[in-house]
């Protein structure tokens, strides 16, 4: 008697279990594998909620690549190269002076920085001239703050020089 009831329950349960996938409706197949990127500077928006495939960012905790459905996180950026891989595989590179990248839920990525330019906008000569100047200050006997600022400049410039080659 008891086993019969179980069997009947199982019989009843099975059709609904089969039906369940058929009843599923929605846009599951159309879920985007793109990430919405906003790359903003105080004076310009380089990307404004644009669909891209992948973004590589130089976080303080290490280089990282951000794809769609990334875990939400907030990353402080080192002065360095941000690479944006767009649909179709083409990629764009920007050198940012440092800021924050915020990976939001639902594949939204916001990057904020003070300055950011494409690599072809930089002059290797200007970088070299600044490095020698900053090295002079860093090894000189200025104030503690002057030396610390020169070291910050060196960090930026050496990172820039490395990617310009």
């Amino acid at each position, binding site marked *: 008697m008891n086993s019969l009831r179980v069997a009947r329950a199982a019989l009843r349960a099975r059709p609904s279990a089969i039906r369940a996938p058929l009843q599923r409706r929605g846009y599951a197949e159309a879920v985007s594998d793109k990430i919405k990127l906003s790359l903003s500077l105080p004076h310009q928006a380089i990307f404004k909620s644009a669909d891209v495939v992948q973004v590589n960012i130089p976080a303080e905790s290490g280089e990282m690549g951000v794809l769609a459905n990334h875990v939400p996180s907030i990353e402080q950026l080192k002065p360095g190269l941000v690479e944006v891989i767009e649909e179709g595989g083409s990629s764009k590179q920007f050198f940012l*002076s440092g*800021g924050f990248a915020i990976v939001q839920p639902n594949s939204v990525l916001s990057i904020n920085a003070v*300055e950011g330019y494409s690599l072809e906008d930089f002059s290797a000569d*200007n970088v070299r001239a600044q490095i020698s100047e900053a090295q002079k200050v860093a090894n000189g006997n200025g104030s*503690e703050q002057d030396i*610390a600022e020169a070291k910050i*400049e060196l960090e930026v410039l050496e990172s820039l020089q490395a990617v310009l080659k």
Partner: protein
Amino acid sequence: MPFAWKAAGITYNRYLTVAARAVRRSLKDDKRLVAERRGETDLRFTKWTNGKQGEPRSVVEANQAAMVEAAGGGQSA
């Protein structure tokens, strides 16, 4: 301490300013001239005590003084 500049009393805001300045100065000359104007700051403030206006001071200079003070405090602590 993860950042050496913090020991010198430099704030994150100042760090970003210095880094952005280095980036602007590295640009090709035509873009550099346009960009460098963004780095200029000229802001003054005065402190009012007992209804009397104090001496006007530049924010940049006041910040520099505050950083020196912060560095000294950091060392003695």
